[in-house]
């Protein structure tokens, strides 16, 4: 008879969310099944206790809350929305400016090394230039550097001993 129990419908029954036909079916079952009646009663008691005893969050000063929100809104508005907001943050903006400057210098005739001289920077700049799209996700790229640092720290003991002399 277990397959006839209506456990899965009992929470909706307590919440009054069953369609009329389904509710009638569950009511009929409950009238005949003491086990489901007891289960429904336990769910109902638990839900009532949850509603009655819900913890209140620590109090805050609503005037200060709204003032702070207003300030954040104005700050965000001042830097012209969120899409380019990251440019207003000083660190990414400086790094971006430096990167662009390096790329521009590399592209100028005579920039970064004499013609004909093999320049190790040129290769780096070519690679950087091919990944200009990464500028748009500079915040993520910076995080990658951080992750790399953590990897290095984690493998410090595997680094070769420094040569003496």
């Amino acid at each position, binding site marked *: 008879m277990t397959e006839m129990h209506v*456990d*899965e419908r009992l*929470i*909706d029954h307590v*919440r009054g*969310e069953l369609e009329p036909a389904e509710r009638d079916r569950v009511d009929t079952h409950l009238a005949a099944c003491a086990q489901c009646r007891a289960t429904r009663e*336990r*769910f109902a008691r*638990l*839900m009532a*206790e*949850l*509603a009655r*005893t*819900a*913890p*209140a*969050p*620590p109090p*805050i000063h*609503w005037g200060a*809350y*709204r003032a*702070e*929100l207003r300030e*954040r*809104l104005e700050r*965000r508005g001042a830097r012209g*929305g*969120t899409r380019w907001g990251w440019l207003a943050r000083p660190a990414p903006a400086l790094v971006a400016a430096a990167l662009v400057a390096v790329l521009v210098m590399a592209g100028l005739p005579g920039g970064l090394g004499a013609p004909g001289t093999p320049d190790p920077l040129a290769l780096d700049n070519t690679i950087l230039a091919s990944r200009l799209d990464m500028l748009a996700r500079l915040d993520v790229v910076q995080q990658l550097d951080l*992750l790399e640092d*953590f990897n290095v720290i984690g493998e410090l003991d595997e680094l070769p001993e420094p040569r003496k002399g």
Partner: protein
Amino acid sequence: MESSDEQLCRAVAEREPGAFDLLVERYQERAYRIAWSVLRDREEARDCSQEAFLRLHESAGSFAGQSKFSTWFYRILVNCCLDQQRRRRGWRRLVGWRDRRDDAPDEPDPVEQAPAPFVDPVEGLDTERRMSRVWALVDELSPQQRAAVTLSCREGLATKEIAAVLGLSEATVRVHLHRALSTLRRRIGDET
């Protein structure tokens, strides 16, 4: 006559003065309460609920009016809170913290070893007094089950609304609620 939430949201989209402030006043307590229910941290709840209002201000024009304003706003809010939880977990992973339940049960948790942040003892006592045993057990549920229980039993949202807020089907919300309440019943039974 008092404007409805939906009318106010449209007024926010058109940058009508005062509309945003009115919506904030209407929803600030609920937003902070829901954020705190999910995050259990006053500063994070304050920050996330404010962030939800900022996103509301930015995207009020995209509110199509197909759902209730509250459902649409709660979805923004809960997403902010779940993002915050993910960031919190990501940071803990980054500094080498591992979940004791998953691995290395004997290794001390560096987060627990670090000096505890200052907590006002009076506030702590009040919070403890307010927390009933059953809600302490709710804290041990998965984030989605906890959100479903909070939105259902505390905020009184219908299954359809919870589904819209959490971005899940109604059937999945029913499963979450059933599992959560069954677990709570079992654990309460175990303790008594």
